[in-house]
């Protein structure tokens, strides 16, 4: 099953979803990008160059770890984890970003811009820009700047300019709008490094192409480690890049693929970011593409919520929308509370600290594993590490020592 053959002639469409909905001013730039990407995709030396870069700079291949303790504790399926957290900068975002760095070099451009929510993609982009010698500007909603200061700190120290976006909800979607505004102004020398498999064609395809490295590795590894293909693969879905990345490794296999969205406060609460798992989303066109969006009846976007900033997005990978409708990918949601509990469990049982985003995938695996047979195999994509989430985790578990520490620091800083 090839996701990208566009046999129906509608390039950039996955069933009804995808497409390119951008101001005309960007048509030439996007076409140039599309052609450059096509060239890269067809050139086998390009993939080799990408793999080599990721090997020497980011530590790929990332391993697959067997979670024996957790498996035994749950008493069902054997649980394995693909360790994207071990990448340089701490998440799968670097795969896409380094790939687009190579594209940007081929395009002969010298400046990159990117949106970021949690800050992981901004951090990765700033890193890539330092490594490639590009100028870099990161757009980040002012709310996110305030709550993700550690990532902002590193981005700035890596030489990027971080712009706090004051419009709209002042979160990820608004940062994307700002990026589009920058891009329509500076497209001549600027490449927009979109951070997930969303946005106008060719972004979903391009991001999926680079993230496919996860699934390619994982398929080989799980066969080696577990002796068989997994029965179920779990990945969290924000924009949907890590999920499509690992899913691509198992597209043609008899493997159940499960995307886990941010359930926030649960169904009906209005405080979540579940586009497909809950009933609140509908098809729309925004930010350059057509997919399921959390929007009202007038097509205006709704506020979203998740404990994990990286899942807190209105739209979803159009490829996943299509695969969901075709019943190839099952969608579930994990609530904030499930995520909190699962994080504690995983830390204590296995010594892993998954990012809050990734913990969504763990949460569903933990829920389903006990009901599966001991000969069955689960593979979870640990898209990132949780160190970055210390402020959020400390807040949600109400850690008093941490609060004391911060208060003392504040006094040191003259508060």
């Amino acid at each position, binding site marked *: 099953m090839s996701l990208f053959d566009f046999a129906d002639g509608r390039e950039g469409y996955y069933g009804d979803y995808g*497409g*390119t*909905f*951008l*101001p*005309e*001013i*960007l*048509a*030439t*730039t996007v076409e140039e990008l599309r052609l450059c990407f096509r060239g890269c995709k067809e050139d086998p030396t390009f993939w080799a160059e990408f793999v080599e870069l990721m090997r020497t700079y980011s530590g790929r291949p990332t391993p697959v770890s067997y979670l024996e303790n957790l498996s035994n504790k749950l008493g069902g399926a054997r649980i394995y984890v693909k360790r994207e957290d071990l990448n340089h900068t701490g998440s799968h975002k670097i795969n896409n970003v380094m790939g687009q760095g190579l594209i940007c070099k081929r395009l002969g451009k010298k400046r990159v811009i990117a949106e970021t929510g949690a800050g992981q993609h901004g951090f990765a982009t700033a890193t890539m820009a330092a490594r490639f010698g590009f100028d870099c500007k990161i757009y980040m909603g002012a709310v996110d700047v305030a709550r993700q200061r550690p990532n902002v700190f590193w981005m700035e120290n890596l030489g990027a300019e971080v712009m706090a976006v004051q*419009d*709209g909800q002042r979160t990820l*979607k608004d940062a*994307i*709008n700002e990026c*589009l*505004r920058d891009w*329509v*102004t*500076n*497209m*001549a020398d600027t490449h927009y490094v979109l951070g997930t498999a969303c946005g106008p064609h060719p972004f979903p395809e391009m991001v999926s192409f680079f993230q496919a490295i996860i699934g390619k590795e994982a398929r080989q590894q799980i066969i080696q480690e577990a002796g068989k293909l997994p029965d179920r693969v779990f990945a969290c879905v924000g924009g949907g890049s890590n999920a499509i990345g690992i899913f691509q490794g198992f597209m043609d296999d008899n493997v159940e693929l499960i995307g886990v969205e941010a359930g926030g406060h649960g169904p009906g609460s209005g405080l979540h970011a579940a586009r497909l798992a809950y009933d609140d989303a*509908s098809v*729309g*066109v*925004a*930010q*350059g593409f*057509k997919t399921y969006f959390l*929007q009202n*009846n*007038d*097509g*205006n*976007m709704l506020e979203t919520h998740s404990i994990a900033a990286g899942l807190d997005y209105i739209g979803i990978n159009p490829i996943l929308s299509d695969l969901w409708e075709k019943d190839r990918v099952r969608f579930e949601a994990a609530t904030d509370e499930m995520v909190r509990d699962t994080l504690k469990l995983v830390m204590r049982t296995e010594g892993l600290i998954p990012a809050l985003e990734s913990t969504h995938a763990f949460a569903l695996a933990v829920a389903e594993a006990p009901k599966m047979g001991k000969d069955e195999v689960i593979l979870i994509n640990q898209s990132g590490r949780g160190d970055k989430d210390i402020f959020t985790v400390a807040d949600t578990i109400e850690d008093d020592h941490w609060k004391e520490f911060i208060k003392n620091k504040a006094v040191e800083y003259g508060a």
Partner: protein
Amino acid sequence: MVLEQYLRERLQQKDLLLMTHVVCGYPSFEDNWRELEIMAEFGVDMVELQFPFSEPSADGPLFVKANQEAVSSGVRPTDCFEFMRKVCDHFPFKVLMMGYYNTAFKMGHDSFIQQLSAAGGCGYILPDLPVEEAGELHQLSKTKELAPIVLMTPTNTDARLNVLGAAAEGFIYAVARKGVTGGQTEMGDDLKTFLGRCKQYTNLPVAVGFGVSQKADLDFLRGKADIAIIGTAALKAWKMGGEDSLRVFFSDLLS
């Protein structure tokens, strides 16, 4: 086509027509009305009524803010159509719907065309709907004689301008420069060359927007284009001092 015909007639009398812009419900529909009265006073030929959208990614800061405030104060597309009906009934200028595609998509193409036509609009500008994606909507428009306005931009290749020209109706919206609404545009040789290129690929009247804000711009455009589009500049004037300052703005512009 109704719209093209209207414009050609007006162009018999004036060498440069004027299109202005209003964000529906911002600051309020009452304010909109008073702005429109002044615009009518100064003989404006066409007005875009922008339907507020939560993700106005092609707009600059001032319109972004306008969109957001209108959305959060509860302005809905039905309100905008209702307002458009009143405007069309009352004013002599032609009215276009301007907005983002999702507004039309979400209500359904049929319903959009129906309501727009019922409200008296004579076309629509959806800057994030490229011609490739616009087939069905353009088709439907024909049944109601609505003009789907196509944008031409300085970054377009000749081949692309050709495609755009073929799809266009009513008039061409020529984007004077890269960027979003509300910035400064240099009226110079580049723009002249670009407008020359546009004319190669269309026989429709050409309107120039993005950064047109003063008399000198109109002087520059005269002879090179058919319509000047005043967007942000008018809203700025309104925000600065309401009716008085909007009147001053227009009298300076047209002096």
